C-alpha cells in the first residue's frame, strides 16, 4: 500500500481543497499523475449494524427508476454516494435446519464472522470466528503505521432486553470478535470512550511503573498458565494477550495526535448517557466519536451497533402515522404485522441517522476529497425480516469511495445479485478493498446435514 505521508497531508491541508491538479503535478512531478491521491489516503471502514432487521417490503425500491423506498427516503440526499445490494444470504445465521434457537444470536453472531456461533453447553466456551473487521484491524495494527487504537466498537444504548438462551447474549451484544472466543465489548459510554482517545499516561515515570506492573503480571501469569488445565489455559491466554496489548497501547497513546490531518484542536462530542431516555443524544455521540476517530486517524476500523440485536426499546420520540408515540418494544413490534407502520418509522429514523453520519463524513475534508471518499460505510442487518427470522436478501447498503476503490457515480445504485449469494462474499470484497494482503476465503460453512465442516463459507469475492 502506498502510504499517505504526513507531510503530504499537511501540505494538502494547508493548500486547501480547491487545489488544481496541474499545480500538484508541478510540485510532485510526473509521478503525481499516476498516483491516485484518494487511493493513497488511509482507507477507513465503518460497519453500522441495525437491530431486528428491517421491514423489508419497504426497504427495497419497487421501482429502481423512481427510488421509492419508504425507509430509504432520508438517504435521498446521499443517493449518489451509495449502492444497494440485494440477494446476500447469511446461511450460518440460519439454525432452523438443526432445530436450534438460532434466531437473533445467529443473526448478529454470524454477521461479520460467517461462522455459525456455538450454542452454549456446560464446559463449552462461546465460540464463533474472528470477524472481518478484526482481520482488517489486525493487518493495520501489524503494519508500520499502526493507529493509536486498533479498532473501535460502539453501541447506542446499554439496555439488556431479551436472553437468547442457547445462543446467549454474548452473540447479540457484539458483532466484533478479535479471536474465535473473544467478543469485543461494544462500548455504550461515549464520554468514557472520548476520554480514552486522549488519555495518555500522565508522565513518562507513570508509564514506566505501569509497564513494570504489567511485566510482572505477565511473568506470574505465564507461570500460572502452566499449572491450570488445558481448557483454562485458553482463558488465561486471552487475559495475557490483552495485557500485552495494553502494554503496547501505553506506548502508542503517548504519540502526538495526528493534528496535521485535520484533527480538531478542541474536539467535542454531544453530552449523553447510554440509557434509553437519552438514546437520540447517545447515538448522535456514537457517530460523532466514529467520525472524530477517523478524522484524527486514531483508528481506521469502526463497528457500530445501533442497539443490541434483540433490542426491545421504545421510541417515544417518534410518532406512528396516527401521531402516537411509538411504544411497544422494537423486537415485539417486529413480530406483529399490525405494527408494520411503527417498525417502518423506526427503520426510517435509523436511516436518517445514517444519513446524518454521511453528512458529517462529507463535511470533513481530506485534501481535495472528503472523509467519506476515503471510507467504506456499510449499513446492514443480520436478518432480512425479523418477524419470521429470515436471513436471505439481507439489507446491505454500501456508501463511500473506499479511497478510490469505488466510484459511486459509475456503479449501479441498486444491484440484484440473484438468489442466496453468501454474505461472506461481500465481506471478502470489502477486505479486498481494505487490505494489502486480503484473505482468499472467509468463514466456515456449517452444513446442516453434518458434513462439510470446514468448507469455506465464501464462494467467491464480490466485486463492487
Amino acid at each position: 500500500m502506498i502510504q499517505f505521508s504526513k507531510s503530504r497531508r499537511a501540505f494538502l491541508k494547508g493548500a486547501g481543497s480547491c487545489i488544481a491538479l496541474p499545480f500538484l503535478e508541478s510540485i510532485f512531478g510526473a509521478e503525481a499523475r499516476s498516483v491516485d491521491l484518494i487511493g493513497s489516503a488511509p482507507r477507513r471502514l465503518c460497519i453500522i449494524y441495525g437491530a431486528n432487521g428491517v421491514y423489508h417490503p419497504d426497504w427495497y425500491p419497487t421501482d429502481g427508476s423512481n427510488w421509492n423506498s419508504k425507509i430509504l427516503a432520508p438517504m435521498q440526499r446521499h443517493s449518489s454516494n451509495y449502492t444497494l445490494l440485494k440477494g446476500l444470504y447469511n446461511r450460518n445465521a440460519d439454525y432452523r435446519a438443526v432445530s436450534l434457537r438460532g434466531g437473533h444470536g445467529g443473526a448478529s453472531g454470524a454477521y461479520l464472522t460467517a461462522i455459525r456461533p456455538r450454542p452454549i453447553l456446560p464446559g463449552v466456551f462461546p465460540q464463533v470466528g474472528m470477524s472481518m473487521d478484526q482481520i482488517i484491524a489486525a493487518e493495520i495494527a501489524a503494519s508500520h503505521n499502526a493507529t493509536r487504537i486498533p479498532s473501535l466498537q460502539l453501541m447506542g444504548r446499554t439496555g439488556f432486553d431479551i436472553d437468547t438462551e442457547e445462543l446467549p447474549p454474548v452473540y447479540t451484544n457484539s458483532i466484533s470478535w478479535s479471536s474465535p472466543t473473544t467478543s469485543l465489548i461494544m462500548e455504550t459510554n461515549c464520554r468514557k470512550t472520548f476520554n480514552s482517545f486522549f488519555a495518555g499516561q500522565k508522565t513518562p515515570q507513570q508509564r514506566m511503573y505501569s509497564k513494570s506492573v504489567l511485566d510482572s503480571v505477565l511473568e506470574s501469569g505465564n507461570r500460572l498458565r502452566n499449572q491450570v488445565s488445558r481448557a483454562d489455559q485458553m482463558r488465561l491466554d486471552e487475559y495475557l494477550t490483552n495485557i500485552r496489548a495494553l502494554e503496547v497501547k501505553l506506548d502508542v497513546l503517548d504519540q502526538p495526535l495526528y493534528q496535521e490531518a485535520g484533527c480538531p484542536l478542541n474536539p467535542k462530542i454531544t453530552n449523553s448517557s447510554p440509557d434509553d431516555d437519552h438514546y437520540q443524544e447517545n447515538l448522535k455521540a456514537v457517530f460523532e466519536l466514529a467520525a472524530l476517530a477517523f478524522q484524527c486517524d486514531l483508528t481506521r476500523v469502526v463497528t457500530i451497533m445501533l442497539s443490541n440485536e434483540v433490542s426491545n426499546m421504545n421510541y417515544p420520540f417518534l410518532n406512528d402515522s396516527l401521531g402516537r408515540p411509538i411504544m411497544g418494544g422494537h423486537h415485539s413490534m417486529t413480530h406483529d404485522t399490525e405494527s408494520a407502520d411503527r417498525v417502518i418509522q423506526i427503520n426510517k429514523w435509523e436511516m436518517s441517522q445514517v444519513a446524518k453520519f454521511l453528512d458529517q463524513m462529507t463535511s470533513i475534508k481530506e485534501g481535495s476529497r472528503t472523509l467519506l471518499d476515503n471510507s467504506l460505510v456499510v449499513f446492514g442487518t443480520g436478518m432480512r425480516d425479523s418477524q419470521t427470522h429470515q436471513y436471505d436478501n439481507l439489507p446491505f447498503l454500501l456508501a463511500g469511495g473506499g479511497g478510490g476503490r469505488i466510484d459511486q457515480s459509475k456503479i449501479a445504485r441498486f444491484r440484484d445479485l440473484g438468489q442466496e449469494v453468501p454474505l461472506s462474499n461481500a465481506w471478502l470484497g470489502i477486505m479486498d478493498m481494505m487490505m494489502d494482503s486480503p484473505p482468499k476465503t472467509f468463514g466456515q460453512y456449517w452444513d446442516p446435514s453434518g458434513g462439510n465442516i470446514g468448507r469455506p463459507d465464501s464462494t467467491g469475492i464480490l466485486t463492487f
Partner: protein
Amino acid sequence: MSFKLKSNMTFLTVLSGVMLLTSCGRICLPFFSNCHRDDAESNANSDDALSKCRGNPGWSAIRRLNKTEYNNTIRDLLGDNTNPADQFSANSDGINNGFDNNGESLAVGPSQVNDFFTAAQEVSLNLQEQFTCPGVTSARDTCVLKTLAKLAMKAYRRPIGDSEVADLVKLVDLALANGESVEYGIKIAVQRILMSPDFLFRVELPKDNGIELTDFELASRLSYFLWNSMPDDDLLNAAATGSLHNPEELTRQTLRLLNDPKAADFTADFAEQWLETRRLKSTSPDATIFPGFTKEVNISMQTQATSFFDVILRENLAIRSLVTGTFTMLNPVLANYYKTTVPTQGDSFQKVQVSDGTRRGVLGLGAFHVSTSNPDGTSLVKRGKWVLKNLLCKSPPPPPPNIPPLTAQSHAPGLAQRKRMEMHRADPSCSSCHANMDPIGASLENFDAVSVWRHQDNGADIDVSGKLVTGEPFNGPEELAAVIQNRPEFPECFAEKIATYALGRGMRETDKCVLNDMVALNQKQEGGARDLVLRIVNSSLFTKRLPDREDK
C-alpha cells in the same frame, strides 16, 4: 445403568407418539417429556447420590470476577466502598444459562483488561492508612513485608510463596530507586496484586491425586456463592486448619455466611436474574396508558421480588412457598398500589400475610407481571414462557419459521388477547408449543401490564380457566400456583437454578440426576430452601472438580 435404560425408553415413547412434527418440519416437544430416573426413591436414603447417578462432579471453567464480585471484593479487601466496577463497560460480563457468573462467558477482552487496569490504578491511589508504613524507608522493612504478604494472601485467597512477596517488593524497590516513597511503592505493588490473574480469577488447579478441591478453593466457592465476595478471616482460618471438608464445619460456615448481612447480595443477585426482574431497571411501560406506574412503584416491585426470595431462603421455608406461600413482602407504596388492605408500618418492606391468594408467591409479584409484558399490554406468551422456563425449567423452543402472524382480523376490538391467541393456535405449526404456554399466561390475565388487577381485557370479560398440557386444570393464579407446586419439575428446577449459580456453569444430565436425588431427599425429610442449599454445598458437585474439561 438404569438411568440410561430409562432415558432410552422415554425417548422411544416420545418418538412413538407424543412428539409432534409440525408442518414446517420442526420438532416441538411437549414440555414434560424429559427423562427421569425410575429409582430416585431407592437412592433417596443417601446424600451421596453421585455414585448412584453414575456421573462425575464435572468441570467448571476458571471464573473471572464479575462486576458485583469485583466491587465486593475490593470493599472487603481494602475497605474501599467506591464500587469501581460501576465504571466498567456495559455487557462486560456475559450471560450464560441466565446468570452473569458463568465461567464460560466471563471473557477478558481488551475492554475488560483496560477497565481492570484503570480501576487498579484508581483504587491504589485511594489506599487507606492501614496499608501504609509511615516513616519506613526500606522495602525490606517488616511492616512493608507484612503488609504486602497479608494483602496478597487475602487477595489470592490462599497461602502465598516467598517469591510472590519478592515480586511485590521489587516494585517497591523500583519506586524507591526513582525517588518515590515507600507508600508510593506499596501503591504500585497493590496495582500489581489487583492485576494478578490470581486475584481476578478464581483459580482451581488440577490435582495430582483426586478431584477434591483444596480447602482454600472450597472457601472461595462458598464465599463467592453466598456473599459474591472473598472469604473473610474466619473462613480462611477454617481453610488453613484443613477443616472445611468436614461436613459439620462446612455446614457451620454455610449457615454463618447465610446469616450475615452480606448474603443479601447473593439473594438479590440470584433472585433478580432467576426471576428476570433485573429487566425492570430498563423497562418503561407506556406512561400514556399506565400513568400510575411510577419509578417508585417500579423500584419497590424489584425489591419485593428479591426480598421475597431472601425471606424464604433465610427463614428456611418450604420450597413450595415460593409459589404457594400465604405471604408476600410489601412496603406502603406497593400495599397502596396493589390495593391490599394489609396495614404496613414504616417505610420498609415487611412480611405480610395475604388472604385472597392473588398476590401470593412469585406468580403474584408485580415484577413478574411487568417484566413479561409489552410496554402497551400483557403477553400471554411471555408469561407462559416465563413460568415454563423459570419455574419448571422447560423452556419452549423458538417459533418455527414463516409463522402466520396475528392478522388484522384478530386485532378487532372486543377480542380479548386470549381469544386472539386461540385463533393463532388454530395453526397446527404453532399449536404444539403454544398449547404449553398460552393457558398459563391466560390464567394470569387479571394482572394487566403493570400488575393492576382487572376484570376485562379489550372490552371482553377475562376467562382465566385452563389446563397444563399434562391435563391438570386450573382457574386463575391461585390454582395455577397449586398445580405448579405439585409438579415434580418445580423443586427440581429451583435446585437446578441454585446449582447453576453456585457452580457458575450449566447443569449436565448427570448433574440434574444428582440434584433430583437431593430434592427428593430434602422433601422426604421436610427440609426447606436453606436445607437444599446446604445439601448442594455438601455435595460432590460443590466440593470436587474434574481436572479438565471432558472432551466434546
